[in-house]
């Protein structure tokens, strides 16, 4: 199945957006899961360090210079496709952080345990909310950072708030 049939990226398409293991270990970095030639380029303008480039006109796909990108997250809420995630695998203790755009209510609170979901919408396990950014500059696209087991970092792309205890 291709992503055109079920909306799910193939592993080779994901690999192309992921930096080398050594870079991942150095700390937060933007992962852009945008593989199609669509007319769109706000990510390029959002990055103040010039780490994101689109070759040719705005129909090209974006690429990140992982040596320049420091995972500042300015691009995350700028992406109309909500396709940018920041992954931090530079943490000790077998834990990684995934930051993702989250346009749902209610917003989770720091410390909440949530159910983590994959690109396919499958349950991966649990994560803990570390930070919730929701400033005016983010224009109603809050960024939620959750800690997950390190081996889930490249798979967690969404989460479900756990039902509050009855």
């Amino acid at each position: 199945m291709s992503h055109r049939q079920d909306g799910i990226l193939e592993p080779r398409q994901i690999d192309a957006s992921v930096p080398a293991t050594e870079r991942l270990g150095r700390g937060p970095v933007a992962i852009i899961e945008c593989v199609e030639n669509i007319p769109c380029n706000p990510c390029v303008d959002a990055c103040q360090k010039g780490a994101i480039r689109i070759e040719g006109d705005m129909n090209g796909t974006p690429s990140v210079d992982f040596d320049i990108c420091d995972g500042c997250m300015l691009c995350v809420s700028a992406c109309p496709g909500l396709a940018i995630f920041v992954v931090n695998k530079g943490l000790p203790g077998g834990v990684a952080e995934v930051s993702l755009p989250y346009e749902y209510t209610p917003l989770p609170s720091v410390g909440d345990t949530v159910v983590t979901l994959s690109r396919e919408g499958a349950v991966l396990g649990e994560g803990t909310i570390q930070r919730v950014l929701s400033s005016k500059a983010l224009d109603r696209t809050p960024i939620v950072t959750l800690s997950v087991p390190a081996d889930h970092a490249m798979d967690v792309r969404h989460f479900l708030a756990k039902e509050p205890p009855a």
Partner: protein
Amino acid sequence: MRIRQHPILEFEKGPLIEFEHDGRKLTGHEGESIAAALHAAGVRVLRHSIRLDRPRGFFCAIGRCSSCLMTVDGVPNVMTCVTPLKAGMRIETQTGKGIIPDVRFTHPPADPDYPRDLGNVPLAIVGAGPAGLSAAIAAGRLGVECVVIDENAVPGGQLIKQTHMFFGSKEHHARVRGIDIGEILLKEIEDLPVSVITGTTVLGLYADRVLALLRNDRFHRLTSDSIILATGASENMLAFPNSDLPGVYGAGAVQTLMNVDGVAPGKRVLMIGAGNIGLIVSYQLLQAGVEVAAVVEGLPEIGGYHVHAAKVVRAGVPILTSHTILRALGTEHVEGAVISQIDPQWCPIEGTEVELDVDTICLAVGLTPNCELGSQLGCEEAFVAELGGRVSIHGAGLATTVEGVYIAGDASGIEEASTAMLEGRLAGLSAAGRLLPDLDRNELARLKKEASEGLRTLRAGPFGEHARAGKRKMLELAGVRGGDS
């Protein structure tokens, strides 16, 4: 069901008032549409059909399809999807054609600001959506006095329900939400010689560019030196057993209900169509707290952008390509749906039927350009499948085959709102060029080139293939039949 919490929107509702529905007291918010108030109160059946007495709900929610006609204060055939709710209204389910009461109908009092003859305006623009407003801004900036006429109560066209961020680049308001783009465009016209008349329907266009308008049940006449048709498009219907049941709604109607009125269309929705509209509305349903059972697409591939698909897939909504809906279930309203896989000839594959427990079926199966006014004026037309149906033949500068009449936006071929804005700008510039002979031709050419270049870039990728092919055919036809520059 009212939406209590929304991540993007805050609903400003009128005061809570009482009204009567089939003898029963209900409450709703003053000023919201009657259909929305009834839906919020759990009423989905609005009338019964003329011949077969089938239950009917609304379908388009923008005053086009006539599915929502009810008897209001004794008057039958009231379009409840666009009629504002007032305290004490007596609303009845309509059966058949309704009975016209034996009373003398009176006109509302004349509005001194709107005499019967509204005089002449250099540029009349029909439709205050992204194309129409952009046309007014472009022409207004060059000093052309414009009147923009729209049948809706508020200007902005479909932008008023687009909660998602737009694509494109910063010159095209990329990363700004559609709802906010509407506000930006309206702000821009404030300082320009542009007036917007809402709640007013252009009933007809006549020779010498005369417009017949209907406003508050009164007729008005407006003449113009030039006209831009930015009339948008209508949603397509899909035929399947029970497709007329209340609960089968157009995607635009679902957006209006949840993003304008703040009313959830149901608890669990089946989306038909995985183009950008189907995907975006599915995401918006999830944001409104509504479950989406699946997105069904007849084609073997998703039509919309992957990034839109990814948002709903990661939230657990399956996208089923090469699938179709076989029938809706229910007698008074939708109580379920049966879907199945289809083979390459679009025939259902036996044994693959699945019954889904849904109360709403949302159709996002394409749009058809609204070309009626152009037809009436004698604009030559062509059916171009890539543009979504019949459109007035137009050249690169959006001129139709009738002198002084231009077309822009979805009315000239179904595309995105970003292209509609650029087409509107281009049409506005073309009209200004015709109306202002003293205009600096070099400057006009530069502005037109800028808009054309923008359109070229927006259409350059694989998703612009239809638009490119359709517009190419248009240019060939215009070359033969004389819709110019």
